[in-house]
């Protein structure tokens, strides 16, 4: 044990660190603090430019009421859930079997497939946007859930991650299952999928955070003040078409759309951090 070991610091010795972290943390939380504060303030108080965080009169009902009455914010949140869930289901359904085959089965073309996976890792999701838009426009599926979900159904990164995960799994498990007469499909569903939960959870968190927050593709795939807006699009619609400079209502909309993921994060902090950093490669 070194004398400088962090574990034997007294509270007094630790105080400068705690004070510094608190000050920095407070600066970091400022956008959230102001967002909530302004969402509770009436318009005239917002424009008075005061530095006080606590509203003199609470305008909770007015601001949040305006959001609820002028835009279908519940619908936007539901769209976010449908799109994120749809994407995740396809990603897992495609990537889990493929990752297993690349990790544990011998077949001709395996190295070539894996080379394509590595190549795919280099391509950001923004790159295929133009041809996908043209193809979707010509087949008339723009402004549908399918248009929002389809381009993200394949995650090369998920294939890569599950391959790495399955390679670490003992071969005996699979051989034993084959000895018992299980076919490859049953092996995937009964042995592989149940064992892949840790990796699948990590990936699920990463995927949902990425697509809940995505603006780029929804902005392209959905146009007009559609019923199909995701939360990110919803905030933009509300701002450009309804709220304008009504910061109170705008902050209320921002708060409502930010809360679901932030709340989930606060409830399962460690899993979120593991999931996002484990899969952070793709970013």
């Amino acid at each position, binding site marked *: 044990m070194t004398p400088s070991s962090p574990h034997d610091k007294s509270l007094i010795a630790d105080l400068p660190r705690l004070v510094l972290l608190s000050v920095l943390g407070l600066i*970091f939380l400022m956008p*959230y603090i102001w967002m909530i504060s302004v969402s509770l303030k009436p318009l005239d108080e917002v424009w008075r430019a005061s530095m006080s965080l606590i509203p003199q009169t609470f305008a909770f009902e007015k601001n949040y009421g305006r959001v609820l009455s002028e835009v279908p914010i519940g619908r936007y949140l539901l769209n976010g859930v449908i799109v994120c869930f749809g994407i995740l289901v396809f990603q897992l359904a495609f990537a889990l079997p493929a990752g297993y085959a690349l990790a544990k089965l*011998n077949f001709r073309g395996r190295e070539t497939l894996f080379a394509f996976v590595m190549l795919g890792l280099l391509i950001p999701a923004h790159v*295929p946007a133009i041809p996908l838009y043209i193809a979707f426009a010509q087949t008339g599926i723009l402004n549908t859930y399918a248009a929002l979900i389809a381009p993200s159904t394949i995650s090369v990164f998920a*294939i890569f991650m599950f391959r790495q995960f399955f390679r670490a799994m003992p071969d005996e498990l699979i051989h034993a299952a084959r*000895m018992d007469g299980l076919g*490859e499909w049953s092996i995937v569903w009964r042995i592989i999928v149940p064992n892949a939960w840790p990796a699948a959870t990590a990936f699920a968190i990463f995927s949902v955070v990425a697509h809940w927050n995505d603006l780029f593709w929804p902005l392209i795939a959905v146009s007009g003040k559609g019923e199909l807006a995701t939360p990110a699009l919803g905030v933009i619609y509300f701002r450009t078409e309804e709220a304008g400079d009504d910061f109170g209502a705008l902050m209320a909309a921002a708060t409502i759309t930010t809360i679901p993921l*932030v709340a989930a994060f606060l409830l399962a902090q460690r899993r979120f951090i593991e999931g996002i950093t484990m899969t*952070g490669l793709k970013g």
Partner: protein
Amino acid sequence: MSDVALPRGYAAAAPAGERIHRGEALAAWLLTAPAVLAFVLMLLIPTAAVVAIAFTDYELGAPALRFVGLANFAELMEDRGFVTSFRNTAFFVAVTTPVSIIGGLMLALLIESGTRGRTFFRAVFFLPVVSLMVAMATAFQYMFHPTIGPVNAALRGLGIVGPNWLGSSDSVMWTLAIIGVWEQIGFNMVLFLAGLTAIPRDLYAAAEVDGVRSAWSRFWTVTWPLLGPTSLFVLTITMIRSLRVFDIVATLTQGGPNKASEVLLYTMYTEGFTFFRMGYSAAITVVFLGAVVVLMLLQTRVLDRRVHYG
């Protein structure tokens, strides 16, 4: 050779082994088929197509398209809007990358150097990573509002006249960079925290015996060299994340004022999906893809050799 992976009992009986092997290959293709199909349709063909479109004058709704060679790329070089956009993106990467990496490392060291409040502070700084950036951007729009925003109100309290953060072409990229750092620093901090935990404790004890006493020299002799691989990884992904800046520009400035905050992806978006100049937009996409690939290769080829410890 491929029989090696088969269990001994099967390998002994050659015909049975052969059958199993063929069955295995069939199963493998069936298991990968959906992924291969989606990969080809949603990624491979569109990426090849975007490169091809970049060499045409294709516009959505136009009756025909023409092969124009490098004309789009030549136009890019002449286009003041694109040059500004490229320069702004480079500026954004050049500011947010070092600040969010050094900042993330300092936060990680600060959190790691004590036991109190670790989980709490980690959560606080990580919060932006899981927050809806469009929503948080509107909160920043209020905070940086020139007249009613609390940032300038605080500066007024100190007797300073604050700038029109997002509204002036002199300060808009700096303001976006501040938001970019806020967005990325927690992610880097968490990666460094993982890297710090992996450093064996006895190395610090050994350094102490060798006369390394101050925290400063302890950092430079032990911590920093051992963080090499982590830092390299953080460097690459931070640069690529910064390169992809889009949400905050689309939400806050739409490239304005007067194109002062145009960035690559936003210019690509407006050219392609507002003006429907697909060929030109595709050329911008190719430039963007090129930059990402160069950064990726830089990591694996050049830097990797210097910071790897076997």
